[in-house]
């Protein structure tokens, strides 16, 4: 058994969803400055794998370790180091972009409104800070969700189809942010259908049915 002491290790994870055996012994390792691109056809358990890695779903078999310790026993420390963006932007439509960020990131770390605004500016939606999320376009909502990941200051990024709804400049921006995150010593697990074009070293994991 190879326990990763400086990163994330997933060992022999099996997950059944109802009668379906979705993940069949998936193992992966992720060290700082690494990006893992998880791909595969629809229904092969990419999102399920991401939910297992972030600790939302407990696998029937196998384990997920962070810094050599199981994430179920070190839940709080792991969650503090983690930023998860699901395939939906997870914004409250009645709250403004800034309020959405304040309430989501504020639970994780103390943060000022200026820092939140800076994160929104970096993803190009600074002008939408005071607009309710319901009036934002799908692409803008995705950018706000990305700003939330940025503002969390987390070392582990778990992103589920982050390129969905983004235009060409948005996709370039996201690639730039991922690149900067990896170069700064972070690690990222990205579920995406299309090829990731980044200068950094990308490892791939293909899930098959």
């Amino acid at each position, binding site marked *: 058994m190879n326990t990763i002491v400086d990163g994330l290790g997933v060992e022999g994870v099996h997950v059944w969803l109802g009668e379906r055996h979705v993940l069949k012994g998936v193992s992966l390792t992720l060290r700082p400055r690494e990006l893992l691109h998880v791909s595969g056809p629809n229904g092969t358990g990419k999102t399920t794998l991401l939910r297992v890695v972030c600790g939302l*779903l407990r696998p029937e078999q196998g384990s997920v370790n962070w810094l050599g310790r199981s994430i179920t026993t070190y839940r709080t420390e792991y969650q503090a180091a983690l930023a998860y963006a699901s395939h939906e932007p*997870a914004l409250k439509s*009645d709250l403004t972009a800034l309020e959405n960020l304040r309430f*989501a990131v504020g639970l994780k770390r103390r943060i000022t409104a200026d820092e939140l605004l800076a994160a929104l500016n970096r993803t190009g939606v600074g002008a939408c800070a005071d607009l309710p999320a319901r009036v934002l376009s799908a692409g803008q909502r995705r950018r706000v969700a990305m700003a939330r990941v940025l503002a969390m200051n987390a070392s582990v990024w778990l992103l589920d189809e982050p390129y969905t709804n983004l235009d060409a400049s948005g996709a370039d921006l996201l690639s730039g942010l991922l690149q900067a995150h990896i170069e700064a010593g972070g690690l990222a697990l990205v579920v995406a259908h299309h090829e990731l074009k980044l200068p950094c070293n990308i490892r791939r994991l293909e899930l098959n049915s």
Partner: protein
Amino acid sequence: MNVGAGQAFVLIVRRELCLSFRRPEQLFQPLVFFLIVTTLFPLGLSLQLSQLRDIAPGVLWVAALLSSLLSLDSLFKNDADDGTLEQLALSGQGLTLIVVAKTCAHWLVTGLALVVVSPIVATALDIPIAAFETMMLSLALGTLTLSWLGAIGAGLTIGLRRGNVLLSLIVLPLATPLLIFGAAATERAISGTSTVGALYFLAALCVFTCTLAPFAATAALRITLE
């Protein structure tokens, strides 16, 4: 810097209140329901004033319980639907703290609001002013207990499409003692006899659910999140 439990609690309560006030129709719906039911009852029964006073506690409490039930469904479901519940669950704060904060905020906008408008209804039902204090206290204890019971039911029924029917089936039997003792307390206050027994019982139920329900609701939520 990490965020302490107290700060996180305040932040979640603020978030919930903010969301409630952005959707005034959701905020007022249970209150309007409460007012309408209690106003319609006397009209439908064409009672004498003395008889009205006899049925007042029962009508008041049935309407209060049903109107509280109306809003329970949205306790976790809205957050689960838009994915923000997952973000809350991964925020590094304990799930129990999140459940406690959300339930407290829910009680503030539903239960406490009901307590505040209850004197209007009580006046319409000819409940004497001397009985208001007991009535409001019993309603406060009763609605708080119901919020906690509802948190367990809401946690269990998030993933279901018609979860609110099941939620009512889970919560209503558990809420029956509240109805019996709450109405009894109000009735005794109207007739001027001692209300201590019924109020103590309601307080005991409230303490019981406040201490145990958060853990049960957390467990229910964890199951449905998976």
